[in-house]
């Protein structure tokens, strides 16, 4: 009948009008700066570099292997390798990055760098309030800005961080055992990725 569909539509909007006052299911809006959604653990925004211990320069896990730089689809990572070496997360002597820049205006948050990293050194951050008034310089994050502590990593991705820690502890034990043995000939070379790790 002519007019029936119109009345049904009106009933539906009326139902939603009143429903939005009683049901949180209908009114999904959150008034953002004052209220925030519960953080989702898996969320990813931009990468950051994990360091162990208190000093970010000493504890940086990154060994400047440049795999992420190569694999990054939009090529937003720029790394300069150091001349000297420092002990890495598992205690081996490794190179470290003297420069590690990520241009977040280019980065597309795809997480490929995290997947290819054999050292669990780069992880995805959840920080998204990165607005700046400098279009170019302000959006290039350098080593210091990228470095975040392992505790921070535990704070944002607890499950993943626990896995990583377990793996690293195992490796630390292994390398400690190896270091005890006299033939530590390949200590300087980057560690091949453990099997099963992506």
């Amino acid at each position: 009948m002519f007019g029936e569909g119109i009345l049904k539509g009106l009933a539906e909007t009326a139902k939603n009008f009143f429903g939005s006052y009683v049901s949180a299911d209908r009114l999904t809006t959150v008034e953002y700066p004052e209220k925030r959604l519960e953080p989702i653990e898996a969320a990813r925004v931009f990468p950051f570099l994990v360091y162990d211990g208190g000093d970010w320069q000493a504890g940086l896990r990154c060994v400047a292997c440049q795999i992420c730089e190569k694999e990054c689809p939009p090529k937003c990572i720029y790394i300069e390798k150091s001349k000297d070496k420092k002990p890495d997360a598992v205690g081996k002597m490794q190179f470290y990055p003297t420069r590690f820049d990520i241009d977040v205006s280019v980065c597309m948050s795809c997480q490929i760098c995290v997947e290819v990293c054999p050292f669990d050194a780069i992880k995805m951050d959840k920080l998204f309030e990165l607005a700046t008034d400098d279009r170019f310089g302000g959006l290039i994050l350098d080593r210091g800005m990228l470095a975040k502590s392992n505790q921070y990593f535990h704070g944002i991705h607890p499950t993943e961080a626990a896995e990583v820690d377990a793996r690293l502890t195992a490796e630390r034990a292994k390398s400690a055992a190896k270091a005890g043995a006299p033939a530590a000939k390949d200590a300087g070379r980057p560690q091949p990725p453990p099997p099963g790790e992506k």
Partner: protein
Amino acid sequence: MTASFKSPAEPKLNNLDLAPSSEPGISGDLLEVAMGPHHPSTHGVFRMDIVLDGERVIRLKPVFGYLHRNHEKIAENITYIASMPYTDRLDYICSLTNNWAYALAVEKLVGLEVPERAEYLRIILGELTRFQNHASTIGFLIQEMGASGTPLMYAFREREKILDLFESLTGSRMMCNYMRFGGCRVDPSAEWLDQVRKVVAGLPAFTDEIDRLLTSNEILMARTQGIGILPPDLAVNAGITGPMLRASGVNYDIRKIDSYGIYNRFTFRVPLGERGDVYDRYMIRLLEMRESIRILEQALKNVPGGPIVDPKSKIRGFRPKPGEAYGRIEAPKGELGFYLISDGGPNPYRYRVRPPSLVNLTILEDMCLGAAVADVVIIFGSVDIVLGEVDR
């Protein structure tokens, strides 16, 4: 445009009582209007060069390429896996199905086995994607008819729940980058699956709501019925796929024909339209949403355990043997295919996307001839395109 794209018959005036104001053959008072690229209802940057006689469209030329990002050439210069996040950006409403199509093509190229659990996950995510795509398409279509966004906001309300699921599994709401060659990236927890079950249980209420709000609305019927008719033979000749083809009454659903993944294990029906007008396209999407819910319910009943990625699959040092492969799926918008040629190197030798949005859009002129300007907007909306996929 090739000759086969032209309608063999004289374009019919779509149920419009407007007298032609000039003699045929004489272009007296024709008005040329460039709709777009900055027009509110062109879904992004798209231009239609329309020649109008009064308010009747007598010529329409779609102009695209404003959003061209060189996707295919870029993909030929980066590794296989690095293209995966780029496929998210093709049809940015349904990144998961894009991932799936690309993964399928590479799996065919390499011959990877997808574990059972991953197949189920792909079905679940693919159908959720289809649901939210169709919901927002209906919303946008009605928005263009001037409904001040009400159905669109309802669609976004449901989409929000689905996107929350995507985010809690893949880490991102729209750019999921979740599928991997031979499986998926992250293993979902049991809680996540429970959440999906909860959301899916709420979806029928949404389709019913849209149904009550719109389907029998006389204004909607008057606006959409008999408008933008696409005859089946023309649709087949032009290579139209997806809901648009089925709205014209052609039974062609790649989920049924190829039964890629494990679609042959689920019972679902393919709704078919009869007249191929805008209303049919709206209804087919609505009915397909219902069928998606059926598939989801079946798939969620028993998700098997086990690995989620083929152990042979690897990310670094991925070099397929020389060869070629074409993987296609029934994406929400139509047949999405990826054609790959490998020369044995780390990058594909040739990488080609068969985008449903672009192919479906080529037929726009034939549907719009004789329609009013106000109809062009809704015919365009009923095609359901995303410019990211059209221009690539």
